[in-house]
């Protein structure tokens, strides 16, 4: 019963805003992190682990936002700098800089990737009714990789659809804008 209502609500939201046709966001546990003083959230089920910053081997001829590859217990995984990915200013790594290892499923293909964020804050329980559909800014700001906006303690945070943020097609799209900024 409860599920049904939430689904309908979310569906209505989608139709109203015409975005995020991919998934229905339910409440649950979210890992929150900071980047450029903005708060973001990730579904906790996507997160495999959180590591402090470590040596990253840079890989030539890749876009700037690909920081390189790391050794995750014998497995080589790519690491993406989320700041550059979103076209934000690059920033020196600090003690608080973290790599969040996420596990994605993209067109039946599973992959593990690391994302570099400024700072991991905490894990929050967020209810369905605390989540609003992403606002529409028109063509200038893309919102299709945002699952919704979470409201916690009078603050707003962006819930990321990390699959879409990191998967290939999306990479290509963001690549262009990031590239323009970079060069």
């Amino acid at each position: 019963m409860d599920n049904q209502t939430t689904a309908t609500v979310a569906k209505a939201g989608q139709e109203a805003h015409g975005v995020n046709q991919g998934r229905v966001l339910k409440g649950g546990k979210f890992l929150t992190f900071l980047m450029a003083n903005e708060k973001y959230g990730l579904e906790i089920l996507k997160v495999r682990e959180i590591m402090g910053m470590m040596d990253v081997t840079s890989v030539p001829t890749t876009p700037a936002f690909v920081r390189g590859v790391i050794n995750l217990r014998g497995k080589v995984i790519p690491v993406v700098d989320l700041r550059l990915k979103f076209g934000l200013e690059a920033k020196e790594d600090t003690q608080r800089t973290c790599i969040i290892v996420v596990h994605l499923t993209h067109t039946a293909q599973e992959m593990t990737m690391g994302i570099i964020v400024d700072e991991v804050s905490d894990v929050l329980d967020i209810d369905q009714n605390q989540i609003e559909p992403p606002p529409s800014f028109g063509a200038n700001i893309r919102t299709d990789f945002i699952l919704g906006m979470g409201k916690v303690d009078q603050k707003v945070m962006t819930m990321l659809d990390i699959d879409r943020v990191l998967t290939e097609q999306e990479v290509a799209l963001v690549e262009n804008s990031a590239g323009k900024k970079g060069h």
Partner: protein
Amino acid sequence: MKDEKLTLHDIAALIVQIEPTDLADLAHVLRGLDAIADSSPASVRRPITEAVKRINQLTEGKTSDPSGLLIEIGAFIEEAINAMERSDGDALPLSDPDTEEVPTIGSGPQAERFNTLPSEADPALLEEFITESQDLIANAEAALLELETDPENAEAVNIVFRAFHTVKGTSGFLGLDHISKLAHGAESFLSRIRDKEIRCVGGYADLAFRSVDMLKDLIQIAQDSMGGGSMVTPDGFDDLMALLAEPEAAGVFEGVYGEACGTMETPPRLGDILVAQGKADHEEIEAVVTDQVDQPVGLAVVKSKIPSLTEVGRALRKQRGMGGNEPVAESSVRVRTDRLDRLIEMVGELVIGHSMVAQDETVNSGNYLELQRKVNHTDKIVRQVQDLSMSMRMVQLKATVRKIARLVRDLARRRETGINFIPLGEDTEIDRNMVDLINDPLVHLVRNAVDHGIEPPHERERNGKPKEGTLILEAYHSGGNIVVEISDDGRGLDRNKIIEKAISKGLIQPGQNMSDTEVINLIFQPGFSTADKVTDISGRGVGLDVVRKAVETLRGRVDVSSELGKGCTFSVRLPLTMAITDGMLVKVGSQRYILPTVNIDMSFRPNAEVLFTIVGRGEVVVFNGKVLPIFRLHRLFNIKSAVEDPTRGLLIIIGEGNQRCALLVDELVGQQQVVAKPLGDGIGKIQGIEGGAILGDGRVGLILDPQGIAVLARQTSDSGIPKEVVRQSGT
């Protein structure tokens, strides 16, 4: 051999399943044997009498080992069957190439209903064939299901087609006639779909499904009879063959949904066979079978019914204690390769973790000798574990080569041309994963060489060649790759013929100016085949495109070198993926890379006298009297603070033939054995980088791909900065 009477084959089948204590069945067998003995020549009667003697012992309970006695009885029955066959002349047609072309329709179905596995079939090969076929069938089914929703999906048609093609080939040389026949029929039918003559919908789709079902049954039967039991040809086999040969004649069309098929008996599953043998629970099987008749052949049947039936059959066999006849002796355990990979990764981690401990200051300070000794001891164990885990994945190419040798022999026999098969380097070790994957392409290439490459004997004699063709299969490690070369001394590739063919197939336009490489590339196009006629051996145009695809998915490549009239060499070059690479650690600026040692010809610090520039830009070095281009790794990869002056850096000569060049790096750091790993799906394939590897300090080092670097360097503009970011999507 009348229907109502038991035949020797029936009895053999019964014996396999019978319980030593089941007196009713034994009596049944006895009556059957008596009847046969009465009407048989002396050579058949003798083993039958022996069998009867033993059955009597069983029924009288005079034995301590009833199961052993049953096996003996089985042996005598088999002897009787053989004797019977000898006296009947060629009652059971064995592999006869002529019957491959047009399957005999409805003729002598009784005589052929039972068959034993060819005695010469190697159980190991057979087992492999069965596993392989089951995979292929699964793929074909999935593809067929996809075709139901999207009949235009050419790739799916190809998958089904290739499945039958591969099964046909292997079953042919294993002597599994029925399977080969079915596969051939299905292939002919599917080639019409592939050529867009008909569409895979309606009755045609049903027919395709039925073919897959039948193949599945046949494979299952072959598996069940591996212990020496008889092979039963399912009812409806001949009907299906007739349908496949001329679907239209039987009323199968695009629009007809399975009606024509419905008028005929549904092909029996294992259940029918079990019922026929009186061994299955009638009600249970019948309930399932009726279900099937009512349902259109589709997902439901394929996915849910048949496995359950198979399992019913197996379970029944097991329950009645007949499993003993199946080969159960397993000296090896099948382990999922991903688990093995994981294990090896973890062992790698263990090695690194251990070396960190071993290099710890405390251990090496000399104050704790006891601790040092313990660490050294662990060191040895860790090394052994590492070696062991590595060797778990490495296998010799021998099994594959042997399989191919067998294939060549059979192909040669069919063609009546003697072929010398020379295997070289069959002890070359290759990654376990690769063995499975390399097999199909090699089989295709060998078939291709025998069928298209080596000429018929009279033609060879006319050209002054020995009557016997020669086929060389050579495997070796080179340039960090595993290379398998298949060379024949046949007619070689005929440029004009290829072009002609490509034009007739619509692959190219007439009058196109093409380089030799481009022409050779044409033979890798789907649907291309220079063979004039379709034969059982090869030549429907599947083959080379499949080979290339298979090899490319392994990030390898296929090269062809050919001389008209002299012969042709296909070389399959595969990267090592998991194989250990001997690497040289090189430093460029702040970065370190691994260059596979096999790729390094020479490294030296050049004098200013051997360095020149061409039109002020292109740099060259004179090395051993040869002029080689210099590529600066730091420019290619955009690395800052690297050594700019070649006389202060190091030049490494890499590449072969006209790809030879000198690579400028800062310095060599040292040698290291590494395990190549993919860079992760998110990053895809990067030009010039073969993969990553975990270095001794736990960091990731990138393994350079010299060939890719040479290509990258040549694509790069004069400034040395890549024109655009080269990225390919990951697989």
